């Protein structure tokens, strides 16, 4: 395991989607592996249905708590247009893990602004390596929409500088004891997210496909 480099993970989405929780789990998993960790949150007004991001940085020693544009190793987007909003934060070759759900804010729904037709195609056309899948459909198939968080974490598990099992252990650890019934279903969601990402990372597809 290389400890002289810093891993930058930018988690983005909309207030209420679980962005903060996902970032916290990644941070705790990194701490358990002995890394120094810093995690930045945008709170305040953004919580009211606005844009939410959390920056997770870990390595041997982390100074700045923020990820600069062009330096994120992984972008975890809980909503597809939000994925495109933060795509320029990726370093060359960084991975965008994108939930394809489209959530239009009231100003879009009212016709003041347009929702981009295909944000994933836009990103791919610009050369971004996007892995896109419907995390909501996977969660729904498993019977609980709240599992989206675990599905998304499963999806990035193969891109971390530590084994996927360590991330899974942090997720499952949240339910062991208090809600043992949630353990198995979260394991399934994690595996399903991981599979979905593997399946969709077959290579960068052509724009507009």
């Amino acid at each position: 395991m290389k400890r002289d480099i810093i891993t930058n993970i930018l988690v983005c989405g909309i207030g209420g989607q679980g962005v903060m929780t996902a970032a916290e789990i990644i941070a705790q998993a990194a701490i358990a592996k002995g890394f120094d960790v810093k995690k930045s949150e945008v709170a305040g007004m953004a919580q009211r249905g606005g844009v939410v991001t959390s920056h997770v940085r870990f390595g041997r020693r982390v100074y700045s708590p923020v990820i600069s544009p062009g330096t994120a190793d992984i972008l975890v987007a809980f909503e597809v247009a939000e994925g495109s909003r933060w795509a320029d934060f990726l370093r060359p070759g960084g991975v965008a893990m994108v939930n394809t759900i489209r959530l239009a804010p009231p100003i879009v729904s009212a016709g003041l602004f347009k929702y981009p037709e295909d944000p994933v195609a836009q990103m791919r056309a610009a050369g971004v390596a996007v892995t896109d899948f419907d995390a909501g459909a996977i969660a729904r198939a498993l019977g609980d929409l709240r599992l989206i968080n675990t599905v998304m974490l499963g999806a990035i598990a193969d891109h971390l500088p530590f084994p996927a099992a360590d991330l899974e252990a942090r997720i499952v650890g949240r339910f062991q004891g208090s809600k043992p019934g949630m353990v198995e279903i979260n394991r399934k969601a994690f595996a399903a997210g991981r599979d979905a990402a593997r399946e969709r990372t077959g290579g960068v597809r052509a724009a507009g496909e």
Partner: protein
Amino acid sequence: MSAAVQAKTNSRLLLSGNDAVARGVWEAGARVCAAYPGTPSTEILETLALFPDLYAEWSVNEKVALEVAIGASMSGARAFCAMKHVGLNVASDAFMTMTLAGVIGGLVIAVADDVGLSSSQNEQDSRYWGRFAHVPVLEPADSQEAYEMAKEAFELSERFDTPVLLRLTTRVCHVKAMITVGERKAVPNKGFVTDVKRWVMTPANAKNRLPKQIAREGELAKASEASALNVVEDGSDRRVGFVSSGPAAMHLRESFPDAPILKLGFSYPLPIERIKQFAATVERLVVVEETEPLIEQALKAAGLYAIHGKDILPRLGELTPDVLIPAIKTLLGEDVPATTTYPHFEPFPRPPTMCPACPHMGVYFTLHRLRKKVQIAGDIGCYTLGAGHPWNALDTTISMGASMGVALGMDKARDPEDQDKAILAVIGDSTFLHMGMQGLLDIVYNRGNVTALILDNRTTGMTGGQQHPGTGKDLHGGEAPRVDFAKLVEALGVKPERIKKVDPYLLPTLAKAIRDEIAIPEPSVIITDRPCVLSDFYEKHQPYQVVDDTCTGCGNCINVGCPAISVKRTAVKKREGASDVELKYVHIDAAMCTGCAMCVESCGPKAIIKAEKA
């Protein structure tokens, strides 16, 4: 239970800067802690409240919070208060004099600057208060330092007989980082001793304290020169040396790993001699500070003319690596590499919205319809969102409580021909108690023609739902005396017949109440009385749905502004002799809808009905 409270001595854990400050304050033996909520400082007191062995309160405003802490300090107990940057403006009257009187029990004031403006009305640099009030300023850069400096601040406070400012920024408060904690120190309570010459600040007594304050500042300067909180982090690349403080120093260390940095944790009084010594070891000196050039100007005044600072760096916002690297490379005459590979997409703005069923929406839906007849002075809280889409029903927002005074000023300034437009003031419950009451009293006393709307949602909404004297609960959630807004405004002199309580979900009733009151040329108050949907007081009901065949696409319900309502299809209706009309057929998200029925009130063709149970 918070990790900051549970963490055992010597344990290492991930804590936000706010939690770290709380832990440090508790370990320092503080007995009395007070605050008014304000982003990004709010969580400090919320965490302190969880410790069993200290007194913590939500005060009605920051001035009162500081006064509570002053009283505790005078009584010999270690005391603490926290506030956001603009909160210290409110508290400054007490602050400027108590720094003259000094302390018995250590007194620490945490003030959190919103550098980058994520949730405030301005971006001011609280370090100025150090110079203005002659008190020391400590500037932590991360959670570990926030924790350590909170403890050190109490020691400095008692050693130098002065309150101490702990200056935080958003990137300290809301960043989680690893910290190692210790244990609570037992600090004996010294008790109150009558000392009129010290505590009664008449001109004669204050005059006696002035020389002491000046002497104290000299001693503090010596302490700063010797302080371990000011450290040189040496580096091999001596082309540029940096003087920095707070999170900016962390961004610097990240950006220039080999550069020498003099990192100031004890930044006022400035350790001028140490900075001069440091300057002599590097080719160029650059001051990197958020946000104003305080250190830079002090160094120039001390004779270090050839330094850089705000000539090459921005004077606002955060000094993150993407800002620092190009500026310093340019200074050195180096090429500035492109930072990003991929383009920046800006799909559409996603501004914060009100929550589904928020009672404020009823008010703004109504005000939007009266828009041409009213001028609206607004205030600070969730309801400031009323300025945005789709309501566009706020004309001003300045500071906490300003709606009242601003409305009165608008009333008094208008020409007779403008009298047809009514003046309204809109304010929330917590903000009214914080600083709005005085303004309303002024409206009454000076016979203003203003209709004040007090949006009582029984919480401090925007900061996350804190208690206040109008909620009936204290900081710990226990029963507390509850102010009666109608009686309160009546006591301020509003005539009983000009005070109306209205359910904001009943749109026609609310519209009538506002129309009636603005027609009468004297002060009136309309109190809306539905709780915040995120509070414990809110009761959810069965959701609603749209009957597609009945929906005419008029779009009226969209103007309620509820995020649960979206447009599912549009059509264009041709009209002879008039412009086309865009029809908007809507859908209600049953997962978001809580059955408040406000949209039902707005729907002419009665196309919105209770959803069938799944």
